């Protein structure tokens, strides 16, 4: 096994957590974000699609979801930035008896709101939502979603039937929105007891009915924390904005080279600003024209501008997956993304210029950020 390096973060430092097909890595910089150290690989050989940082209730905890092809998937956590990890005796996220289901992969870990410091949410494949109310010690399947009458008609996309997005409404602790490929978005307003599809205006190019109630291939959804009615959505064909908390969606693919792509990120304080990485067609799924360009809107999708300063503009056939783009909370905002070719890029000026943080990593499937407290 490879030798593992570690980082030594201090309060105020920035972490970029990178999940890959062969393990997880932790990048650390001080608030200037000028120089980066790398820790890892953690869980070498296991795919890590889900990572999170939990600093609530005095914690400094990294969560990771290594998936071994041989031994299965489980959630593990570290309170010392990766030097040691929990290794629970029993799989902590598992389908209960009677569901006739088996966990394949954990796709998303989301710490709960500040008002629920011991809550954690987990999206998995096959598509289901798990919730913990004791800081990750025990987990329960959300039965309301699992028993939804439409679930038998959900179909897997290329990545499997995965619940990959969990949005906790900042205004209402009982309202949660999730997205599944391929089922679309569902929302609960009673804390998970009941769910309804919420895909009005989102196209399903691959179905005879282009605007079905459910069945869309939603790739990623983000919600403004400052203005929660504002959301953006990158679809399997289609780029959308909602101004009514996801109840309806309008196409805002204005001036992008392709409205196909996977990730989308929103500014933590400016609800008009978001970033995407368009890909050429759902057949090729690489950056158009061999140019690696991030696109940014600063006017809620009326226009999108390419950001390429510092990114390769020739023979750059890259793929950026749904969770491989993230922003930090600093000012100006930092933007980070990883590619399937194992390159990790970062910008500390909201995308105006880019530097390569790492090259030669295994295929990157997840990028998350955190400011160490």
């Amino acid at each position: 096994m490879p030798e593992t390096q570690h980082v030594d973060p201090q309060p105020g430092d920035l972490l970029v957590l990178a999940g890959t097909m062969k393990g997880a890595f932790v990048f650390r910089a001080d608030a200037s974000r000028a120089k980066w150290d790398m820790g890892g690989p953690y869980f070498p050989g296991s795919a890590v699609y889900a990572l999170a940082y939990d600093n609530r209730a005095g914690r400094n905890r990294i969560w990771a979801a290594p998936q071994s092809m041989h031994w299965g998937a489980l959630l593990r956590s570290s309170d010392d930035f990766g030097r040691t990890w929990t290794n629970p005796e029993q799989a902590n996220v598992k389908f209960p008896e009677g569901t006739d289901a088996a966990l394949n992969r954990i796709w998303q870990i989301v710490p709960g709101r500040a008002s629920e410091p011991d809550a954690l949410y987990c999206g998995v494949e096959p598509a289901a939502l798990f919730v913990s109310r004791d800081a990750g010690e025990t987990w329960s399947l959300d039965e309301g979603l699992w028993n939804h009458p439409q679930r038998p008609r959900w179909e897997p996309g290329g990545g499997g039937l995965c619940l990959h997005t969990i949005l906790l409404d900042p205004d209402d602790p009982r309202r949660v929105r999730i997205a599944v490929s391929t089922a679309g978005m569902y929302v609960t307003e009673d804390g998970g007891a009941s769910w309804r599809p919420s895909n009005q205006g989102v196209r399903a190019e691959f179905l005879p009915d282009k605007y079905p109630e459910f069945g869309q291939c939603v790739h990623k959804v983000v919600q403004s924390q400052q203005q929660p009615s504002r959301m953006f959505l990158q679809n399997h064909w289609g780029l959308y904005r909602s101004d009514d908390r996801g109840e309806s969606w309008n196409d805002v693919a204005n001036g992008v080279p392709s409205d196909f792509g996977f990730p989308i990120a929103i500014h933590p304080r400016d609800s008009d600003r978001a970033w995407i990485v368009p890909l050429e067609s759902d057949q090729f799924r690489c950056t158009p024209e061999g140019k690696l360009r991030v696109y940014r809107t600063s006017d809620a999708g009326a226009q999108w501008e390419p950001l390429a300063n510092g990114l390769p503009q020739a023979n750059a056939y890259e793929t950026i997956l749904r969770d491989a783009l993230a922003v930090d909370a600093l000012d100006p905002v930092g933007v980070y993304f990883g590619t399937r070719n194992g390159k990790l890029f970062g910008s500390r000026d909201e995308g105006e210029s880019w530097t390569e943080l790492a090259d030669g990593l295994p295929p990157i499937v997840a990028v998350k950020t955190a400011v160490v407290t």
Partner: protein
Amino acid sequence: MPLTFVVSGPLRELAGNRGELRVGGSAPDVAEALSLLWSECPAFRDRVITERGELRPHLNIFVDGESIRYSGGFATPVRDGAEIVILPALSGG
């Protein structure tokens, strides 16, 4: 005679770096033998079988040298003192 389980990878780590475990008790088949193993090493169970009670697809179990995939699965008979080997399959990418 006790059954001998030979394990590798993370199972070995979970067993205190023991690659071989001797487990007493009577087990007519693999399912019963594994139950004895889970009693000895509870952490093995979720790593070897899924919630549906199936052997994980990229693991193999051999009883006295024969893969249970070709000898009856969990119903494969186990003789007194058998050697049961749990190995990751030759897979990956």
